[in-house]
């Protein structure tokens, strides 16, 4: 029922959110994360990003995603989880990650989805490079978003 994927193709949010609608469920909570045009730097300056590049340690990333889903299903009363992460070059506004959680009761779906994105950003071996007009930068660790 669960799925976790890496893809270089554009992600359609609905195809994740509505891939499975179990009969005992009433709510699916979805996080759609996407490339921001403007990011605040540590020095307080706002920087304009031209595009992003994501790279993964693919087999390990898939293993870590699978572990996260197993841990979420232990912790929260949810029916299924779908995670799709984009790799390669992303234009501004394109979806980088979708996490959907379906559950009989919406509260558990909200809590699990929020937990999953936090843990994904902390543990799944994927790296983001921000490309600016005048340079580029591999982001290390989570920025707030």
């Amino acid at each position, binding site marked *: 029922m669960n799925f976790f994927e890496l893809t270089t193709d554009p992600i359609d949010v609905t195809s994740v959110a509505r891939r499975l609608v179990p009969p005992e469920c009433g709510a699916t909570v979805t996080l759609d994360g996407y490339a921001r045009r403007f990011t605040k730097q540590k020095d307080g300056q706002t920087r304009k990003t031209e595009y992003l590049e994501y790279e993964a340690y693919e087999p*390990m990333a898939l*293993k870590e995603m699978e572990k996260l889903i197993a841990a979420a299903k232990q912790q929260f009363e949810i029916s299924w989880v779908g995670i799709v992460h984009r790799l390669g070059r992303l234009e501004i506004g394109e979806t980088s*990650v979708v996490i959907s959680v379906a559950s009989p009761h919406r509260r558990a779906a909200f809590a699990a989805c929020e937990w999953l994105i936090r843990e994904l950003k902390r543990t*799944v071996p994927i*790296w983001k490079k921000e490309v600016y007009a005048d340079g580029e930068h*591999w*982001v290390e660790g989570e*920025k707030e978003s």
Partner: protein
Amino acid sequence: MNSLQVTKVNIQILFFGATADITGRRRIEIAIPSETTASEVSKILIAEYPSLATHKLHISLNEQYAAGQEIVRHGDELAIFTAVSGG
């Protein structure tokens, strides 16, 4: 005399993102003394590529996060990378 010879094992090292940029490599094979730990391998790599030391590094061993004290065996795959930033 053989008893004084250090046994060597071959392992694969993977780099990603910033560590791939620093080393100019994505995958190398190196020979290390047997009984070397994961964090000792990371020190060997930093000696080879000193710019790695300017980053907080994480290590995985055979696609699992490594704490550092794990013994690296012949044929193992070790990756060294900066804090992840997916999402």
